[in-house]
């Protein structure tokens, strides 16, 4: 089960990375980041099971918390940019002032 879980983790991370690089919608980019974080969690859990050590589970909690904080602040920024510039396309958001 460990190997198969790690292979699934690799696949999900690659899909998330493709979404992060290819998509230009800011919300979809944030969701791709969530996908990559989930793939990391999967690897942590798989190694935790293989080594019979629950430290990996503690790391998963930390990653989940960071993901929640990142989503909250990131979405607040997206809403703010949309309110002032009417755009969520990352190619159009290229000015610090505006």
């Amino acid at each position, binding site marked *: *089960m*460990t*190997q*198969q*879980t790690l*292979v699934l983790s*690799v*696949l*999900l*991370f*690659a*899909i998330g*990375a*493709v*979404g992060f*690089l*290819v998509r230009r*919608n800011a*919300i*979809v980019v*944030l*969701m*791709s980041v*969530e*996908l990559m974080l*989930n793939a990391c*969690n*999967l690897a942590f*859990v798989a190694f*935790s*099971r*293989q080594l*019979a050590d*629950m*430290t990996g*589970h*503690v790391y*998963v*909690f*930390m990653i*989940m*918390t*960071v*993901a*929640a*904080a*990142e*989503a*909250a*602040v990131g*979405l*607040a920024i*997206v*809403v*703010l940019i*949309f*309110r002032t510039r*009417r755009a*969520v*396309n990352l190619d159009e958001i290229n000015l610090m002032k505006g």
Partner: protein
Amino acid sequence: MIQAIAFYVFAATAVVFALIVVAARNPIYSALSLIGCLFAVAGVFALNAAHLVAILQVLVYAGAIMVLILFVIMLLSLTPEELGRPVINWRKVLAVFLLAAAAVVLASRLGTAPQAAVPPADPSFGTIEGVGLILFTRYLLPFEMVSLLLLAAILGAAILSRRGPGDRT
């Protein structure tokens, strides 16, 4: 045996939903597929004896974070023009090709590596009792620091989305 079948069902579901997340044009479809993907990953967590992590994945990720994302998508309610038309250029093709190649190489190496026997889990492995014990003893300081991080995130989000008296809309 039944575990292997369940694993492959969950894994296939997760990969298909993840592909929809990246490929869907409408962010609503992306968000709903991401919820499905997170549920499937929670199933894989449970199969790896990480019961508490699986429950928290459903509660925190699929329950809280995804509701936040869906709420923002519906708040913005983007029109087709604001979504923009899909652009395909050589950089995107290159990114997809390179990452697909890297994933295939890594996955094939992992799939053919010699497999160590998985030790039998003791009854408290992955339960609230087992994880909570080391979370509140060995990892107490990181736990408290994470609560500070959450406080900072709450304040940051609240201040960012606050409306000043001079704001439009």
